[in-house]
């Protein structure tokens, strides 16, 4: 049956509208759960707040379990889902840059926009930095292009490239998630509390 839009159950023309609705809901939830504070996000790295880790790990695990159940019951065809293409070195370098930016600025691109919306000054500076970064990248595009378009591995997944059984991967992934939650709780209790708004 699913996915709904590629199979024509929802007309293509609706996808922008659905995207806007999901975007608003996503932004609302991010802001409502305090993710528009750079201190909350930076807390993962300093060990006083692991909400980011817990939220995104839970989201990933819940959705992967849900998707595989829906695939098993025939409501969703996993092979029709979009897999983001892998450009190996571009992903590694981009990941390092994003990680440094995350620690230094205390935002990821999504939460920075949330914080801009509620008028946080550090977020304004952060988004300004993103814009400068985009400008510099575009100006030097011809220089970066071999990395940007090179090392292309296609739309690969761990399961396909290593031939793993997806169900075991999910099971082990869920156990890792729960272990991570327990460990992060232990760490948080040992680290000095930081109060912020």
């Amino acid at each position, binding site marked *: 049956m699913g996915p709904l*839009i*590629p199979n024509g159950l929802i007309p293509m023309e609706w996808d922008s509208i659905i995207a806007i609705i999901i975007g608003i809901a996503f932004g609302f939830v991010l802001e409502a759960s305090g993710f528009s504070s750079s201190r909350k996000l930076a807390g993962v790295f300093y060990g006083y707040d692991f909400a980011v880790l817990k939220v995104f790990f839970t989201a990933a*695990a819940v959705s992967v*379990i849900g998707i*595989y*159940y829906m695939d*098993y019951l*025939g409501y969703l065809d996993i092979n029709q889902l*979009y897999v*983001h*293409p892998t450009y190996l070195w571009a992903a590694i370098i981009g990941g390092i840059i994003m990680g440094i930016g995350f620690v230094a600025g205390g935002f*990821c*691109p*999504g939460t920075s926009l949330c914080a801009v919306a509620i008028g946080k000054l550090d977020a304004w500076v952060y988004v300004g930095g993103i814009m400068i970064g985009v400008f510099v990248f575009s100006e030097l595009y011809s220089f970066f292009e071999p990395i940007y378009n090179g090392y292309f591995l296609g*739309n690969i997944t761990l399961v396909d490239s290593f031939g793993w059984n997806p*169900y*075991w991967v*999910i*099971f082990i*992934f*869920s*156990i890792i*998630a*729960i272990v991570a*939650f327990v460990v992060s709780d232990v760490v948080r209790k040992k680290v000095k509390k930081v109060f912020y708004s």
Partner: protein
Amino acid sequence: MWLEKKLKKCFTHKPYKMDKKKIARVTSFRYQILALIFILLAGGLVLLPKYQKQEGIKSEALLSHATSPERYISTDQIANKIINKDPSFILIDVREEESFKNYSLPNAINIPLAKLFDEESLPYLNQSQFDVVFFSNDHFYADQAWMLCNRRGFKNLRVLNGGLNTWFTTIINPEKPSQDMPAEAFELYATRKASSMYFGVFYPDQQAVAEESISNTPAPKKVITVQKKKKKPVEGGC
């Protein structure tokens, strides 16, 4: 009045101290309970019995396609299309390579039934630019090819009704209608005779006319290029 009182009592009723304690005891374990549910659901995926998933179209759709005679295209239609150089179709010969080399329709592509789903034959079959017309000696093997491709959800598939045998009896060597047949039969015969001349059949009555313009060369093979079907990726990201 007493009902009102009772209702009031109902709504203002507070849980007993014991209840509160029990609830508190359970909710203090809420994360452990959630974690357990989580593990159980993930473990359930591992333990569920696996089954072979059906690929391609649904069996009901396949049945309704299979019982419908819409897929058949007559030899007259095909002859007409070839003569008019209709660019909208591909002829696929599903017989063995040897028979294909021996005789085939002009511009036909040879994809033996065994090689139907080979890497190099898929671009011809799984595309939406051309109609695909299968043919074999009869339409038996062509029907099989049609069924296999239809099962995988390929579009615009047709089968030459009667295959090459009917092609010979109708187009190449049409039967002359007898005197008591209707006028349409004579018209059809004239059309078929003309088509057969196009495909290189020589009639004794045209000898006088066409003495100088005999050419035994078969119609030139044109190259059919098929673009590989590109899947339009659905863009996504964080």
